[in-house]
Structure formats: C-alpha cells, structure tokens
C-alpha cells in the first residue's frame, strides 16, 4: 500500500497495476516461505501462522485504502502488514524477537504493530479485533474524520460473541468499518460445517442490516473490486460493509499442526486454483505480463527478503533491563 488509494470505485487493470498486485502477492508468498524455513532453523519460535494461499485477500483489500485509514488484523497477519507498507525488515526482526522489530521484538509473529501506518495488530484472541475496529471507527465518526477502518478476521471468529456484538454496534451506529471475513474453511482444524449452523457467513452478517457480499477470495481482482465498492459506500456515509472472502490456507494452521482434519487431495485441488497461479495465468493469457516481468518481480522480492533477514540477524535482543518499560506510560 505504498500508493495513495484513489477513490475509484473500480480497479484499473493496467499493465502496471497488474504487476503491482502480483508483486504484492509474491512478496507475501516468498516472505512466508522464508519464515517457514527460518522456523525450522529455530530463528523464529512460538506460533507461526502462514497466510500462504490467502494472499489475494489482503492484497486486494489494501488497494482500496489510503494512508489515513486503519487496519486491524489477526495472528495470521504478516501479509497484511507487508502490503500495508510496514517495512519487511521490521516485520522479520519482530519474528526473530529482536529489538528492531516493529513491536520491539516483544510481540513476535502474532503481534505486529505500526502506529504510524495505523496498523493495530496482530491480535491472537479470535474475534478480539472486531470491537477494537468498531471503536476506531467510532472515534473517527465522532471527530468527523473521513477515515475507514478495515477489520480482517477468519470465519472461526463468526462463532464468537464479539462478531455479533461488533456487527450490531457498527450497523446500529452507522460506523465506517469494512469487515473482511477471510473464510478459509477451517477454524484451526474445525471445518465450517462442523461449527456453524449457517455456513453462508455473509448471510449471517446481512441479518445485522449491513450490506454483505461473498467474494472469490482467490481472485485478487475480484477482491480489489469488492473492496473498492465497499470503501466507496462507507466513505459516502452509508455505514459499515461486510465482505466474505472465500479462500483457502495451503499450509498448516501453525507449525505444530499435523493436518489430520483434511486430505492432501483437498489441499492440492485448492492449490491448483491458488491466487498467484491463477492471476499469473490470466495475465499471461491477456498479454498483461511476460516471463521477464515475473522474473524481475521475483528478483526484487528475493532481494527485499534477503535484506530483511540480514537486518533481523544483525539486530540486537532487547536488554532485560528495559523489559519493564512501557507496561504503562506513567510507570
């Protein structure tokens, strides 16, 4: 999201824009592949939740935002942070737990924060970010600011009370929130139809009287188009908007997950319609990209990630002496 969002209600699929979308998705994919590798080397510890397979959602939605808008994400948020413009080196250092990480190394993979870019976590409590997004939007509305708060969450959050409380509050108070449900079909290992009586998430959302759409979350252009439509309506003062992006997580829930709840065939079938492959094939067929363009993207991304790893390696650990700082500002 280094570009200032235009208020256009539709994406403009120029050569340049398509390559930009592709690059953002490749940045997420390669960054996370590197993270998985670094995890096996024990450079990254704790929980590591990979977004691989879901890149089109964060990439597409972020195109509709401007610098003043806010983002609230989940514990699977490396991709969101990257495409929001949080520097890769700060994210990687955070994953290492180093002091130059975006959250001083204290949060790790699940708690990326960047106040300057209005990126408010990184929340590891499922559904916990929804009320926060409602409040950020409430502050904007009360202060008469033209800002949108985007809240990402998985379909697992739909079973939490916060989902219902937050949608109701946002709709009741007509707050500028874009709710983006990343429906990847599994709440950790529990399939959607094993946890929800109504599996059409957007239908549940619609019962709170806010516009709710279902989007092909594997198609970055569809996601961008829907997000632009939604943000346009929100900025027009029409209140909150809901997008259910249907997507799929290619990797395990976290690095500890043996994936007993799904078959390899199911994963393989989704990988065939993955967001990167699909967009690449479309661009090639439409003459929007050539092998050389994609090779250049891969090169630039590889160099960005290598620099991020070098930065993280070189960064220091926070001193134990400062551990007590920032529990409270007055402490």
């Amino acid at each position, binding site marked *: 999201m280094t570009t200032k969002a235009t208020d256009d209600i539709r994406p403009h699929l120029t050569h340049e824009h398509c390559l930009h979308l592709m690059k953002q998705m490749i940045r997420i994919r390669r960054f996370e592949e590197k993270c998985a590798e670094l995890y096996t080397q024990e450079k990254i510890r704790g929980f590591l939740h990979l977004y691989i397979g879901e890149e089109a959602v964060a990439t597409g939605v972020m195109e509709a935002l401007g610098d003043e808008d806010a983002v609230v994400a989940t514990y699977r948020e490396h991709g969101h942070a990257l495409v929001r413009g949080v520097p890769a080196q700060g994210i990687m250092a955070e994953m290492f737990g180093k002091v130059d990480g975006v959250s001083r190394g204290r949060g790790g993979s699940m708690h990326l924060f960047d106040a300057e870019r209005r990126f408010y*976590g990184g929340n590891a409590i499922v559904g916990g970010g929804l009320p926060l997004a*409602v409040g950020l939007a409430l502050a904007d509305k009360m202060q008469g600011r033209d800002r949108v708060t985007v809240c990402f969450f998985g379909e697992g959050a739909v079973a939490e009370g916060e989902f219902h409380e937050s949608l109701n509050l946002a709709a009741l108070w007509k707050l500028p929130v874009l709710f983006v449900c990343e429906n990847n079909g599994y709440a950790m290992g529990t399939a959607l139809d094993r946890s929800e009586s109504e599996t059409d998430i957007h239908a549940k959302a619609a019962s709170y009287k806010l516009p709710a759409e279902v989007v092909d979350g594997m198609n970055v252009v569809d996601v961008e188009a829907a997000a632009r439509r939604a943000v346009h309506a929100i900025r027009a003062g029409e209140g909150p908007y809901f997008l259910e992006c249907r997507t799929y997580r290619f990797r395990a829930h976290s690095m500890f997950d043996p994936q007993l709840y799904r078959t390899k065939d199911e994963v393989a079938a989704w990988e065939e319609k993955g967001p990167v492959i699909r967009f690449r094939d479309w661009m090639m067929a439409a003459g929007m990209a050539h092998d050389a363009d994609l090779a250049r993207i891969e090169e630039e991304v590889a160099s960005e990630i290598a620099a991020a790893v070098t930065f993280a390696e070189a960064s220091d650990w926070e001193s134990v002496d400062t551990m007590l700082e920032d*529990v409270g500002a007055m402490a």
Partner: protein
Amino acid sequence: MTKDVTYREAMGRAIRDAMKADDRVFIMGEDVARYGGTYAVTKGLADEFGEDRVRDTPLSESGFTGAGIGAAIGGMRPIVEIMTVNFSLLALDQILNTAATFRHMSGGQVGVPLVIRIATGAGRQLAAQHSHSLENWFAHIPGLRVLAPATVQDAYAMLAPALEDPDPVIIFEHVMLYGRTEPLDVSAPADLHFAAVRRTGTDISLITYGGSLPKTLEAAEALAGEGIDAEVLDLRVLRPLDNVAILETVSKTRRAVVVDEGWLTGSLAAEVSARIMEGAFWELDAPVGRVCSAEIPIPYPKHLEEAALPQVDRIVAAAKAAMGR
C-alpha cells in the same frame, strides 16, 4: 468551597465537568442516557450533552468495552460504564488481552487512555450473581491502574486525573457508597498514587479500601471506646499499591488487620499481608489479620448476606485478637 453531596452526585458531577472541559470525553454503557444510569450517576447528562456523547449501548459488554478501547486509541477519551462487576467478566478479555496489553506488546507504540467505571460490592440483597467484589482480579493485571474511591471527595476528584492517564484506568464504585453524603471540595485535586490515612492511631493499623472504609472507621471508633487507638489506611489505589504507606503505618503501629470484601483466598488482603511480611516482618508484634468475605456465593437473605461480609464486629474482634485481647 465545600458542600455536602452524595457519592453518586459527586461522580456525576465529575463526569459532567470532564465532558465540559474536554470534547474528547464521552461516556457509554448500558442505560447511561435515557434511563439515567442504573445507579443514577449519569442522570441528566444526556440532556446536557446529547446522546452522541452520552451513549446508550446494547447489552454487549465485550463489544462496547472493546469499542471504548478502539475509540481511546483513535484519539477520544472514553468513559465506559459497566453496570456491575459481574457483567465486567463478559468484557474481561478486552480489558486483559487488549487494553492492558497493547502498550507493552506493541513496543510502546499503542496506549489505551480509557476509563472504565464499574459498580462493585454487596449489601443490597442482590444474591450470588450481583454481589461480587472482584477488584483483586483487576489489580492482578499489569498495564491497568485500579482505583477504589471510598470517599465523596475521591469519587469526584479521581476521575479527572484518571482521564489524563495515558493508560487504562478501572474505577470501582461500591454500591453501598452511592447514597453516602460527605463534604466535597471540587477545587481540591486528587492523586492516583497514594494511600490515605483516614484516621491516625498508634496501636494497630486497619488497612482497607472502597466500600469497607466506612465500616472500618466505625470499627476504629468502637475500638477507641475500648482503649485501642487504631489507624485506618485507605488504599485508594489498588494497582499499583502504595507500598510505602502500607509499610509506614505498620512500622508505626506494629500490628495490622486488612479488611477486604473480596473472598479470603487469593484476596487483595493476602497481597497486602504478604507485602507486610516481606517489608516489615521484624517490625511486627503480632501476625497480620484478615477480615474478608466468607467463601460462599453471597446469599440473598439479609442475615446470611450480613454474616458473609466483613462487618464492624468482625473487624473489632480481629483487631482485638491482634492486640492479644
């Protein structure tokens, strides 16, 4: 300058003055606007400030507490009213995992300048689900400041500095204090750091907070009638505790009883007692006593409720035991 008002009026006046002083201040909670507040603290405020700033919420404690957190991060200075402490449990995730955590977990980037007011305590025959005293649970959490104004003066004066605090502040208002009338001086500022000696004495320290302060002061008078000169320390701030004041009074009197409406096990009284043990063990002439609530869900009938809670006679008995009498 001083005028006799009720605790309820003092708190309402504090909110009103804060809203007049700063446009960013607003209050939200269940029935704060049209109903006027369950304990009538916010009565009249909606007429004066409008329902945008005196905001009725649905029965969504987690939702509106979290919304308060978000609004605080977004530049407002929200006051969230949670009707009673039992309902605060529905918001505990937001308070613990978000409000108390964000500043540290974000490496100092994101503070949450939020005030949450919670009615607490027993004494109105509201039975087991509406009579808790859970201040200690909140006082356990790093990242929160926890206040227990026990006087009309503190009910008024602690709110303004709480709103200036860049981090979350929880204010516990004991339901039995709302109707008490005491002098108020609106020009006297309050601190959010120090315990206060409410009665000086030399023989024993009675350490308490919140709704137990009036009972403890009454017990001190009764003890005076028996020749025991008790000092009464009102903790006021339950997190961070004023260690210096606790150790000072105990070092002076050499005996202490802690009076706390929370259940005995794992109580705030246990924490205060441990601190005395750590910091003033060699000053003590007797073991530290505790007067807490009986370890039962608070029962409905008046005689059982009274028997379950700290009462003047039990405080007097505990003090006399510590005196060896």
